[in-house]
């Protein structure tokens, strides 16, 4: 503070340097995405232009119309939605049972169960790939979204249980005691008393699990052949001919799957930070 009066030159130099740093950070974080958006709005012929001309070139939505007309992409969006929503709903339902038990009940072996759940969340997906592949083929679920819903539980369940448990612990006990005194069963207590209180936590956890499921690539690539989810479709996007990469369309498809996530993330900003820290920092 007193630097401003003591040595104004140094003070303003420091401020300038600080704002320069802010600009550099903002540029670093946003420039690649900005360039992708720009590319999605340019016609294929303009991709050859020099950057300045490229920025000034005419805006067109043709990439977007082509992407939405692509049957693989349409199907990808549908399957991604089914798989992500399905695995999130299952995880939230059974995960909240587990979180209620772990956050509110005292019993032997609780510590061990917590550690097992944590271990599953750090364990490499590749370690179960061959086991899951044979299981999925044996169940006849290869190339079936149900197979993906099932396999995604491996990362959505530990995550939801872990985060919800830390939320459940923070709910004041009086609420539940009142319900117990009135003779409510644990499930009644959970659904009628705790769920309404947990709503923000459920939304946050559900959203984070949804993002993870929406982004998953290894299982989706391995356990499906034609019923691809959107990340796999984007990774293997090819145009009318096999010889050139239709970058404009790839960027358009990328923007289409990213925009909903960015909107969700911006709307739920505060919840997301608390959800991430409950899951990671508090542990």
């Amino acid at each position: 503070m007193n630097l401003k009066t003591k040595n104004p030159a140094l003070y303003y130099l420091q401020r300038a340097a600080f704002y320069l740093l802010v600009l550099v950070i903002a540029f670093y974080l946003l420039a690649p995405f900005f360039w992708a958006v720009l590319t999605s709005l340019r016609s294929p012929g303009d991709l050859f232009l020099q950057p300045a001309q490229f920025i000034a070139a005419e805006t067109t939505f043709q990439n977007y119309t082509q992407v939405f007309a692509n049957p693989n992409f349409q199907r990808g969006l549908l399957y991604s939605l089914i798989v992500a929503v399905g695995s999130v709903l299952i995880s939230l339902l059974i995960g909240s049972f587990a979180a209620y038990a772990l956050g509110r009940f005292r019993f032997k072996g609780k510590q061990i169960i917590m550690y097992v759940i944590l271990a599953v969340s750090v364990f490499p997906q590749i370690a179960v790939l061959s086991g899951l592949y044979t299981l999925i083929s044996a169940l006849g679920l290869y190339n079936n979204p149900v197979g993906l819903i099932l396999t995604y539980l491996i990362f959505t369940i530990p995550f939801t249980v872990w985060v919800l448990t830390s939320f459940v612990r923070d709910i004041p006990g009086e609420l539940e005691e009142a319900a117990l005194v009135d003779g409510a069963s644990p499930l009644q207590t959970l659904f009628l008393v705790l769920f309404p209180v947990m709503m923000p936590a459920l939304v946050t956890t559900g959203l984070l699990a949804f993002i993870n499921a929406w982004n998953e690539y290894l299982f989706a690539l391995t356990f499906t052949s034609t019923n691809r989810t959107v990340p796999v479709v984007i990774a293997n996007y090819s145009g009318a001919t096999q010889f050139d990469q239709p970058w404009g369309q790839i960027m358009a498809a990328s923007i289409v799957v990213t925009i909903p996530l960015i909107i969700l993330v911006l709307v739920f900003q505060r919840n997301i930070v608390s959800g991430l820290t409950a899951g990671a920092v508090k542990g």
Partner: protein
Amino acid sequence: MTVNTPPARPTKTRGIEAARAQQAIWLLLPTLIAIALVAGYPLYRTIYFSLFEANLTTPDQRTFIGMGNFWFTTEDGVALGFLQDPKWWGAVKNTLLFTVVSVTLETIFGMIIALVVNSTFKGRGILRTAMLVPWAIPTVVSAQMWSYLYNDTFGLIGRGLLGGQALLANTDSAIWALIAVDVWKTTSFMALLILAGLQSLPSDMYEAADMDGASKWTQFWRLTLPLLRPALLVALVFRSLDALRVFDIMSVMLGNVNAAATSMTGYARQALIDNSLLGYGSAVSVAIFVIIMVIVVIYVTAFRVKFD
């Protein structure tokens, strides 16, 4: 603990406790079954298959070969175990390089961004929001975005900065290009976690430090960093484990063949799925599992990370 002897003072709370314990088991059952089905059983099967020679399409026709997938030399001196394959060791080396460099850079950049966002200035809200953008972008999308930037005929970096050099064409230069992508994508996540840690630090300690005339620099090293240690360590553990099992960006940016030379997971998946070697691929997966578990144990014991 014995059931036969009647309790001297049958308290009501004990009955409630026992009933609650019983209920807890029922509440946990669906989760435990799901975990056993999608994690426990497949992991057991992977370990089991690692001891056999088998094809992915016909898992029932298998021959027990013990540790042969790991280490086996035929009479003619042909090395068949994956531990004898230089490509595997190349993948290990690249994955470790990728992990160490990208996690280090992410921690440093994440710290800088978090410190900037934590101070008061005009436009702070905007920067905080901008921080979330790379994190919200799906990994496959960011991989494609950067492939385009690196492209030697169209890309801003590949053509503009490097004058038409194909950065992704060979593994040695590609690994650095991939590190740049991972750093861009996940620095935000680090910054978010560090920022959350920074905001929980007590401000009166800084006021006291100011009174004592400690410089900002001293305050950072003597106060911020030690207080931030627990949050920083947990973030480090999670990021390192993520980096060690990386697959997406290699697969998308290099294709599955080169991904096998660049990441351990890519190597395992190529053996398992593309080459249909169920036993061999499982053996590699077991090795990755062991490597990651050893690193978890080292982290947890060396840094005394606490999870509850």
